[in-house]
């Protein structure tokens, strides 16, 4: 049974990736989880310089989901390369680095720096964080912005480039197309949905940032729909995410058109989820006699249903 998938030049042993911002830098989990059992570890979003992030409260649980406004607290790319990457390399993890820029130049600088770092296997370009004002999302919300960032990053690196798209746009498929036109090797979607929760007793927002991004099972059907729309708009691989909590959820995305998937919020609930995901996928493939997971990608059947039986 072949669980491996290919995203540009990035080959992964299985389609399950740890989503950015939900898995620290990977090393936090190295003691508890075999990182090589995960298709790829996507790092927390990195700017060139360290960032402090927002004051608490940074998360709040909502029905079947959670809001977060962490504000991209991070150690910056140089400390990542010096302090985290050596251990990830030693473990043999497949590492995708999520890069964030306030300007086009910052994305390019990050791409150059990381291209020279041993042990980085791909770049996820964050043009979709809903929680910070400076840059990122302003690129990801426009066709030109997306095109410009992706082309600039592509010119600066030999690594596979995968912009992470926001769902907070009218037509995510057109953004995916702009990314493809700019030479993206893949697109990942969706980032979180901009959302808000209020404490009615104090009449204060529950997050210090007032608004935050919604993730978790609550968003899954919307995310599946968006992956399906993008599948019809682009030919490059899609990495799907949004509320995946088990193999069945992941299969929805794969059947809708995702080559690989990312798991975020569910990893908070169950840090040992990874073996359960691959196990569940194997069970499904065995039951449906499917040899390669790649054969499932975009296998959704939307033809008109034939009548199975007619009563009386």
């Amino acid at each position, binding site marked *: 049974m072949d669980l491996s998938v290919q995203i540009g030049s990035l080959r992964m042993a299985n389609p399950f990736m740890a989503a950015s911002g939900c898995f620290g830098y990977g090393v936090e989990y190295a003691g508890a989880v075999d990182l090589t059992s995960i298709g790829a570890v996507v790092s927390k979003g990195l700017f060139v310089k360290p960032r402090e*992030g927002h004051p608490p409260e*940074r*998360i*709040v649980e909502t029905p*079947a989901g959670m809001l977060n406004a962490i504000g991209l607290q991070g150690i910056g790319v140089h400390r990542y390369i010096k302090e985290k990457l050596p251990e990830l390399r030693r473990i043999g993890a497949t590492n995708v680095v999520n890069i964030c820029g306030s300007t086009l130049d910052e994305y390019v600088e990050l791409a150059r720096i990381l291209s020279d770092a041993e042990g980085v296997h791909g770049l996820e370009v964050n043009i979709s964080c809903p929680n910070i004002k400076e840059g990122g999302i302003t690129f990801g919300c426009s066709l030109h912005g997306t095109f410009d960032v992706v082309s600039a990053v592509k010119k600066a690196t030999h690594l596979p480039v995968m912009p992470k798209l926001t769902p907070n746009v009218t037509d995510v498929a057109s953004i995916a197309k702009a990314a493809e036109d700019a030479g993206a090797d893949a697109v990942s979607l969706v980032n979180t949905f901009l959302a808000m929760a209020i404490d009615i007793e104090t009449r204060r927002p529950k997050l210090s940032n007032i608004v935050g991004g919604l993730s978790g099972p609550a968003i899954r059907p919307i995310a599946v729909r968006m992956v399906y729309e993008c599948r019809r708009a682009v030919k490059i691989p899609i990495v799907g995410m949004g509320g995946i909590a088990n193999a069945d959820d992941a299969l929805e995305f794969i059947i809708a058109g995702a080559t690989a998937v990312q798991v975020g*919020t569910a990893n908070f609930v169950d840090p040992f989820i990874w073996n359960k995901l691959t196990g569940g996928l194997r069970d499904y493939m065995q039951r449906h006699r499917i040899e390669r997971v790649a054969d499932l990608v975009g296998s959704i059947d939307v033809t008109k249903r034939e009548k199975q039986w007619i009563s009386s």
Partner: protein
Amino acid sequence: MPVDVEARVISNTRLSSDYNVIALDAPEIARGTAPGQFVMVKPGRGTDPLLRRPFSVFEVLELNGTVSGLSLLSKRIGVTTRLLFDAVEGDVVSCLGPLGRPYTLVDPPTEAWMVAGGVGLAPFATLANALASRGVRTTLFYGARSGRELFYLDWFEARGVAMQLSTEDGTRGDRGRVTLPLERALKAHGSADVMVYACGPEPMLEAVAHVCGRYGRTCEVSVERVMGCGMGGCYSCVVPVKDAGGGQHYVRSCLGGPVFKSADLVWD
């Protein structure tokens, strides 16, 4: 190394209309737990609650000299604590741990003063046991809203812990906050070699930190923050910690804490 255990509820003792002590069949976690460490808990398998919640390990339970499980002291305030309050023997609770940095243990002649506010009593049963086995003289300063909300007094007294009680309504011990008897003791024993351990609501921790600062005593506090994962993955549970350079930076309380030196934290 944390482990995840689908722990059976061994017993659930209601201490009042809000407080309960729930015993969980999780010896794998209990065996490795040091005083002040916590577990991430989720009752049920559904999406309400979706995320686990952090709880200090209250007791490490033993049966015939073998570790048999752990207990949690819980106060009913939200969905998880309501489910823990209502749980019955045989129910299953997901329990991930042990997690976080424990309290620093002292040795005689240093004395230990534990300062607890309400459900902040939670880490002090394991700490009292650990200190007793080292022969450390230990006092518990324990405050609650009312005498009806002071629990396990006999348990601590049986272990030779001196008690300094306070209640906001004056029904037991000093009338007022727990810092009242604490400050009185610091004044009276000006030169005593004392380590202060605190756990409780954040305003209480801040008050204890300031009192200890004024009297030049080392104090460790266990903070409680909204926590998404307990493993360092989500960066939600941060507290501001002082830099050497006079600034501050956010530290994840699941990895850097939940126990911090009170002097290291920025109290705003």
